[in-house]
Structures are given as structure tokens and as C-alpha cells.
């Protein structure tokens, strides 16, 4: 459950003030599948960054699972990100010297989870995302689709309450992109909350709820 109230985000570029988000109000229920679309520069990435606690709004209130996370300290934010939020990025953001397995377990390693428990979750995730034969390969030995599968498995490793995907197909060819979308939708089908930013109308249109954002304002909310 996510509740954004009157969220403002202002950037200062040179001596100019750029309003990336203006008075955004948004409630996302548990298990929702939601796409955020809009032209480039519309503020859709800013919204995702605020949702992912990577960026702090200048004004407004953000409640995550009933808890006000607006005023949390940097360390507390890191903790919430680790335990409640899974990220999937356009450019995968895999650590190049870690194997697929090492990348998937990275959040668990940072959280200090026991190796035995990590192994258990890893085996499940590798099987779920068809990566068993690729477990010991490094990212430069994986295809784009495989890289994104590793990234999704990583996002799922801590059983987050919400998955945030930023243009997850932006760097993939069409058929691989379809595969990745299918995986993300399977997550949602399993009960997960999925928020996806995209400028691809076809992909965005598949979501059950479609937010449209222009100039930092939510201008459309279709279900």
C-alpha cells in the first residue's frame, strides 16, 4: 500500500527552477499492476525515484505500508529500500565482476542473510527464471534478456512488497522485451505490486491501471 499526498519535486538547473513533480496525489493498493507513461521530461522517472526512496520530495507526504517514510534518515531509507522495494533498471545495473548468482544474492549479502538461507532462495530464483545453467556466468557472458532476468531475480531476492521497473524493456529487442514483460506480469500474478515506467504505449497499455503524467502532473488515471 502506497499513498502519495501533494508531492512536489523541484530541481534547480542553473538559476532556473524546474518542477519535476507538482502536487502529485497517488494511492497504489497492494497487488496492483500500474504503468506510468508520458513524454520524456514529463516527470515519470522522478515519480519512480520518489516511489523508490532514491529521491526525496521537496514537499508532501509519502506513506509506505502505513508508515510515513518522508522524514526518514539516509540509513533508514537504505534499510527500507533493501527490505521492501525491488528495482529493475533499463540498463540492468549488474556488477560486472560478480557471476549471475553473485548479482542475484547481492541484496541478501548486504542484508547479512545466512549463506544457507541465501543458497535456498538462490536455487529457487535460478530455477524460476531459467538461469540454472548460467549461474556461474558473468554479465559479459550473458545476453541482454538473461541480464534482465538476473536483475529481476535480484529484485525479488528480498521478497519486496513493491517492484519498480524503469523502462525495463528499453534496452532489449522486441521479442526479448516481451519475455521480460511476461516475467514481470507473472510476478504480479503471484500477488506482487508492480509499477512500471515506460514510454512504449503498447507495453504500458497492458497494465491494469495506467497513469499518464505530463509536466509533473498526473493527467490521466485509467483502470
Amino acid at each position: 500500500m502506497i499513498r502519495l499526498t501533494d508531492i512536489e519535486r523541484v530541481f534547480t538547473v542553473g538559476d532556473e527552477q524546474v518542477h519535476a513533480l507538482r502536487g502529485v496525489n497517488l494511492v497504489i493498493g497492494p497487488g496492483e499492476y500500474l504503468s506510468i507513461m508520458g513524454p520524456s521530461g514529463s516527470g515519470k522517472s522522478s515519480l519512480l525515484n520518489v516511489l523508490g526512496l532514491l529521491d526525496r520530495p521537496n514537499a508532501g507526504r509519502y506513506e509506505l505500508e502505513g508508515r510515513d517514510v518522508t522524514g526518514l534518515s539516509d540509513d533508514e531509507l537504505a534499510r527500507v529500500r533493501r527490505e521492501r522495494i525491488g528495482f529493475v533498471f533499463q540498463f540492468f545495473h549488474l556488477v560486472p565482476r560478480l557471476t549471475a548468482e553473485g548479482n542475484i544474492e547481492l541484496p541478501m549479502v548486504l542484508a547479512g542473510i545466512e549463506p544457507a538461507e541465501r543458497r535456498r532462495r538462490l536455487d529457487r530464483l535460478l530455477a524460476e527464471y531459467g538461469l540454472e545453467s548460467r549461474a556461474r556466468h558473468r554479465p559479459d557472458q550473458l545476453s541482454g534478456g538473461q541480464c534482465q532476468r538476473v536483475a529481476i531475480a535480484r529484485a525479488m531476492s528480498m521478497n519486496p512488497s513493491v517492484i519498480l521497473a524503469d523502462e525495463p524493456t528499453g534496452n532489449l529487442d522486441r521479442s526479448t522485451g516481451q519475455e521480460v514483460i511476461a516475467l514481470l506480469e507473472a510476478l504480479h500474478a503471484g500477488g506482487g505490486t508492480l509499477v512500471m515506467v515506460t514510454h512504449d504505449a503498447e507495453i504500458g497499455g497492458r497494465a491494469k491501471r495506467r497513469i499518464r503524467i505530463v509536466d509533473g502532473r498526473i493527467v490521466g488515471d485509467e483502470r
Partner: protein
Amino acid sequence: MRAGDFLGFTLLSLGSHRLRTFLTALGIAVGIAAVILLTSIGEGLHRFVIDEFTQFGTNLIGIAPGKTTTRGGSIGAINTVRPLSIEDALALRRAPHVLATDPLIQGNGDVEHGGRTRRVTLYGVSHAFVETLRMTVAAGDFLPDEDPRTARAFVVLGAKVARELFGETPALGARIRVGGERYRVIGVMAPKGQVLGFDLDDTVYIPVGRAMEMFNRESLMEIHVTYEPTAPLAEVEAGLRRVLVERHGREDFTITPQQKMLEVFGTILDAITFAVAAIGGISLLVGGVGILTILTIAVAERTSEIGLLRAVGATRRRILLLFLGEAAVLAALGGIAGLGLGWAIAQVLRAALPALPIHTPWTYAVVAECSAVVVGLLAGVLPARRAALLDPLEALRSE
């Protein structure tokens, strides 16, 4: 994050740039090797000098004529120092805790035998000489225990003098000329070798009273006093001073206990060791700059990775520790390599130059390794802080 995982992550980061890691660690290794080698030589020198002095015993006191003071006097003032006499040496035997006293005068003279002449160091001493300075007689006896003022014309030869004058023929009982006078050889000393540049084997020993006449001197050069090893030094010194002041009317002599000399030498030699360690430390510092450089580059290269780590839940502190850890591990590895390198060079030096005293106490190795880690941590602070203070969002975007 678990300690094992932390170390694993650090080693993997270092392992992914093998050449770079190797070269940076090499910088530290050279620094540590320099520190360990220089301090080893310094410590070796220290032990060498102390050994040279303590072979005469540590419960030894030297008394020389003239009072050493830091006060200046007018040039040309009449020297009113009274000579130290044989009687003084005899009187000092009554001082508390004293075991033996030995009057000593030293000079050069010719010794002649069977047409061979040799110029040697002449020591005028008493019977107590071998006891006070822990010398050993190889053949015959040392000078007999008789009044040094009226002693008979006996001579004891140093090992080298005996060899040069007599070769393989026995020297005992032979008559030789010392400084033109006739003496009978009653003993030959065991070889002692050189001590601080003096060849103790190229010497002959004659009774002190005869030596003073031969050199036409009124004063002894020194009186050696040995005392009970358990006696408090201050008390022994005070006793000696009282006896001599009573005889001379004032303090016109200088008492130098071996222990105090050793302390002074120790202080000087420690300072030398410290100075050479500091010189080695400079190269360690340069190695530290290497770590600083490499880590700064690594932070720039891995900005996007830092962003990712922050996104998946690493705190700033964790990022800081990861980079500090890399710096410390890098320096520790270099340090261990440096210890090995220094040890290997020390072995080579020992084999090539046996005269060079080298000694590496294991505490130095531990201290060197610790200082390598400290240098690594200090070098890592700036880049690690930079990494930790990166804004996660900005870092993620930098691709």
C-alpha cells in the same frame, strides 16, 4: 553484511584488476621492505655495539682524572688536576661493595725478541686486570698479585704479539725487551679479536708502576673498578667518590659507570634506528599515495555500481567500509609481500656481507605490517568518503 562476505567482496574487487592491484601493492611492499631492512640494520648495529661493551661486564666503573663539567674556564688557567695514582687505586679497594680495582695506563712501545721488533700497544696494569675486564689467559699466568709499585719485570703477551715474535716456539719463560728494558714472559693471552677498532691481541701487559716510569707519566689514565653485581650503583659511586675526595681534597676525577654508558649508547642507537625507519617510511608514504590514486580511479569507475549498491540497500557507512576495506586489504597484502621481500634481502645481505650486523625482531615485523594497514586506511579515507557521499540517484545515472 557478514565479515566473510565483506572480505570476499573486497578480494573480488581487487582480483578483477590483477595488474593494477599487484603494482599498487608493490608500492607498499617496497616501502615495508625498506622499513624492515633499515630497522633491521639499525637494530643489528645496536646489538653489535652493546655486545662489544658488555663483554667486559656491566658491573664495571671507570674512573679518569679530571672533572668533566659543562662549565667553561679561562684559557691558560693553571691545570690543578691532581693525578690519579696507584695509591688511589689501592685505596679504592676499601670502598663499599668493591670487588677489585685495576690501575691502567696505555701507550705504545717496541717489543724485541731474537732480532725481531714489533711496535705494539702497551698496557700497564695490575694483577686484577683479567678479573675486571674478563680476559682469559691461554698459557702461563697473568701478572702476579704483588705491589704494583715494586712489581717484578714480567710481561704477558697478546695472542698476536706472541705469534709474531715467537711463531711456533714456546714464549713462556723467554726474555724479551719491552721499551728497551728486559722482561720475562710469564703468560700469553687468549685471542680476543678487535673491539671497536682496537686490536686487543696486538698488545702486551706489564706492571703498571713500570709502565708509568717507561712513559714518564705521573698519572694513571684510568682506574677500573668492579663491584658486587647486586649492589646499588648509586651507593657504589658514592663510596668511590668519598674515598677519592678524601685523598684529593676535592672532586677532580670523573666516575663513569659502564651501565650509564650503555644507556647513553642505547639512546643514540635507538635514535639512529628511528631515523632510518623514518627514511624507509617515506617510501611507505609513496606507496600510500599509490593506493590513494588507484582507489580514486576505482571510485570513479564504479560510480554506477555504488549507485546500485545504495539502491539495493547499502548504507553510506557500508560503502565507506567497503572502500576502506579494499585499501586496507591492498596495503596488508603489500605489507606481507614487503616483509617477505625484506626478509629475503636480509638473508642475501647476511650471506654476502657477514660483517654487517642485521637483526629483525619479530615485533618490528608486526609493527611494520600494522603501519602498512594504517597507511592503507589513511590513503583510503578520501576516496572512500567520496564514494560514500555520492548521491545514489546521480551515481545510478552515470553510465
